[in-house]
């Protein structure tokens, strides 16, 4: 067997399940290089070092199964490397120039990132993470879509986690508008997230985005891999936006990682007492996260998005809305005005406008046709130019 280069040894060592970023860093500091670690695994010095560590720290550096696996791949690590190339994955290690600088802010940085798609997107400018619950309300889903639409207009890249719910809505909204997006998966590339997102994954790649993860392709998701993945989402992005996080949501972990990295965090607030946004509100109360109060404000608060060519296209403002409402018929206007106060069902609109159901239904159809309203289940909300 030809001796491995340091970079190859690095990839092989990182492919061992049980050698996470912490352990990887410790091994490097003990042995000096990944190649030396592999040699040490072969001649038994690694086992000695692990035992040493246990004497000093009270727990082993490497468990017995991990030591066994390391000994096996020290003899022949090529299989691990071909597993990567067979799948067409590219890999970036901190040894590579292309390794995203923002990931180096993590301590320790992930020893390797495997990906499909365009690796250059990881170092793009204007990268924003958008995260939220796996079980969003229809409004959370819609808000994620609107935010992403605006981010794409500003030329930003959106990072998220390819999970169902807000993550999926975010990726889908970006792809639909021709934007680029990075999906960070919490397992190996052989099991890249929910089956329902098969089409979405293809679309992300076709749209010039990337799907990345820190695990060897064959690694399966476990209890810990998804929370760990969140630190990469937070680090890859210059800012993180949270849409609908209940208490104990993974999105909160991402937000806290982002705050620890000194990145800006924007949180869409919710109604007091709402289950779906309880975590978001806690974040706003306990951390320096900003509330997300509108899309214009979001662009301003994100700062780095710059003027963007879309800023001029923004209508916004109650005056503009009033002028718009003046152009439509009186019944339609009264229904639209009621919708501007908040989402409502048909019965709410009947009660709010005083018109009979048949009249409200007709007015609503006109608003839907114009794209000024939209239906989510039994509830209607304003859309298009009527959105502030």
């Amino acid at each position: 067997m030809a001796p491995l280069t340091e970079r190859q040894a690095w990839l092989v060592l990182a492919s061992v399940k049980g050698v996470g970023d912490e352990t990887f860093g410790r091994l490097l500091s003990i042995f000096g290089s990944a190649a030396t670690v592999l040699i040490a695994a072969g001649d038994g010095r690694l086992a000695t070092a692990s035992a040493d560590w246990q004497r000093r720290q009270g727990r082993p550096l490497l468990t017995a199964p991990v030591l066994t696996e390391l000994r096996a791949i020290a003899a022949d690590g090529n299989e691990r490397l071909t597993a990567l190339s067979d799948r067409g994955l590219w890999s970036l290690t901190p040894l590579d120039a292309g390794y995203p600088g923002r990931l180096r802010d993590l301590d320790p940085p992930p020893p390797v990132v495997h990906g499909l798609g365009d690796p250059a997107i990881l170092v793009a400018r204007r990268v924003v993470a958008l995260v939220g619950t796996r079980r969003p309300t229809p409004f959370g889903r819609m808000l994620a879509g609107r935010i992403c639409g605006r981010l794409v207009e500003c030329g930003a890249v959106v990072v998220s986690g390819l999970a169902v719910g807000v993550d999926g809505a975010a990726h889908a909204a970006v792809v639909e508008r021709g934007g680029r997006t990075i999906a960070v998966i919490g397992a190996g590339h052989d099991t890249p997230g929910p089956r329902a997102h098969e089409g979405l994954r293809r679309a992300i790649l076709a749209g010039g985005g990337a799907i990345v993860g820190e695990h060897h392709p064959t690694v399966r998701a476990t209890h810990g891999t998804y929370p760990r993945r969140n630190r990469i989402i937070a680090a890859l992005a210059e800012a993180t936006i949270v849409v609908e996080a209940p208490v104990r949501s993974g999105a909160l972990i991402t937000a806290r990682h982002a705050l620890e990295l000194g990145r800006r965090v924007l949180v869409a607030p919710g109604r007091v007492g709402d289950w779906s946004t309880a975590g978001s509100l806690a974040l706003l109360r306990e951390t320096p996260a900003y509330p997300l109060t509108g899309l214009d404000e979001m662009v301003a608060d994100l700062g780095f998005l710059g003027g963007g060519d879309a800023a001029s296209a923004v209508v916004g403002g109650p005056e503009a809305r009033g002028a718009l409402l003046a152009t439509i018929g009186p019944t339609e206007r009264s229904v639209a005005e009621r919708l501007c106060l908040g989402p409502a069902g048909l019965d709410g609109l009947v009660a709010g406008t005083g018109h009979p159901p048949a009249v409200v239904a007709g007015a609503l159809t006109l608003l839907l046709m114009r794209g000024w309203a939209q239906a989510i289940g039994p509830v209607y909300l304003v859309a298009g130019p009527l959105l502030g």
Partner: protein
Amino acid sequence: MLATLVTAVVNGLRGELVRVEIDVAPGLPSCHIVGLPDAALSEARERVRGAIRNSGFNYPGSRITVNLAPADRPKRGAAYDLAIAVGILVASGQIRRGGGAWALLGELSLSGTVQPVAGVLPMVATLARAGYARIAVPAANLAEAQLVGNVEVVAVDGLDDAARLVSGPRGRSARAATRRDALSVSSVSGAAAMPQNTGAAHLTGMVEPVDLVEIRGQGHARWALEVALAGGHNLLLVGPPGAGKTLLCRAIPGLLPPLRDDEALEVTVIESVAGLLRDGGLRRDRPFRAPHHTSSYAALVGGGPALQPGEASLSHRGVLFLDELAEFDRSALDALRQPLEEGVITLARARGHVRYPARFQLVAAMNPCRCGHHGDEDRECRCPRGEPERYVQRVSGPFLDRIDIHVRLGPVRPADLLAHGEPEHSAVVQARISAAWERARARNHGRPNANLAGSAAVRAADLPRTASVLLDELAVAAGMSARGVHRVVRVARSIADLEDRARVLEQDVLAAVQLRQPDMRWPRAA
């Protein structure tokens, strides 16, 4: 000695003549029934023997052969008991044939009393058509038998009654026979004063009807229900538990217009065949059937060994209400597609086939998902991922496509329940529905708007230019199919009928689109 009597059998909704020939000949005492009898009919031997002995006659100790002709038609049930018993009395010389030729229908008990049977109305009609002017029926079936005109129908309580009738002189009978005019519209409308059948709703697990005045909130769904009933449109209500779907539907019986005379006869015939008409006359109220979602295929569509009509036929000219639509057996629902399209059900079996009319209006209700809160504004759906989609997919697309009006209900809010003011009474709404119904019938040659074909619907709508241009725009904007456009036109026609408008205007079209909202694919808002 030989005796021949006439009775009838029901096949589907039609009666067929059956001749009962009885031969009493010397030989070992025995009784044979030939002519493809089923189990109930074979047991007639025992019932007849008991009834004859317990009515004061002698059961002949001879060889008795009963032939039911035509011999190649399978015969079932106990309606021949009376004819067989009387035939034996005649053949054994215990009574003498009187002047008149009587047709006899009825089941016998061992004591000799005559029990009611199913299908008397079509059987009497057939006998009358075949020229049998005098028919004896069980007392409990008298009301329905009297719906047929031009015949003398007599109620018999026991075998001795029947024996007196048959042996009596022409024109005289044990009881004053009631004569009716021919089976015509005028005679049937005169039957309004007859005892009314109060319906068989209790048989289908339905609780008592509700008046709309007791239902608060859900103004939109009330309106949608009114439009649906006015035009005979199939209706689907989707909403969370407690939104009032079932409650609203329980108000339907009080909102339906009464049956027209010809419809009343059709409905009564079906109920007679199903054996649900034991003690009533003409049905004047529209059927409202609410089978439980565990109902079997045969219960819904019809079938069983006797090829009985199912709920779909029992709700002919009325409403078939399927609560918890997604919980129904899929194959049973798909079998309802034929009646939804054609208004008839064909039951084909190896022994032959029958066609039952089944032109019902479908009203269905379901939850949006298993937990019922998918898409709610402020309740969390607790279903596993993908479950809401799977739940809705239990009902097939072609089936949903047959439903003109889809309404999505939101939860009822406490404010609605405590609101001041009284909602409308059912009677007020029913008057509007009946008026709209009449307008539609008058214009559409007797059909409700829902049964208009596409081009006929467009003609009936008589859209002004502005409205048809608007409809075109809506169709493009919402990605409607041609079928979808016709659906909108039909529903708009009903909305306009409720408002007593000769032409369908723009506002009707706009409102109709809203009644199929879940189908519309509006452009995604920016």
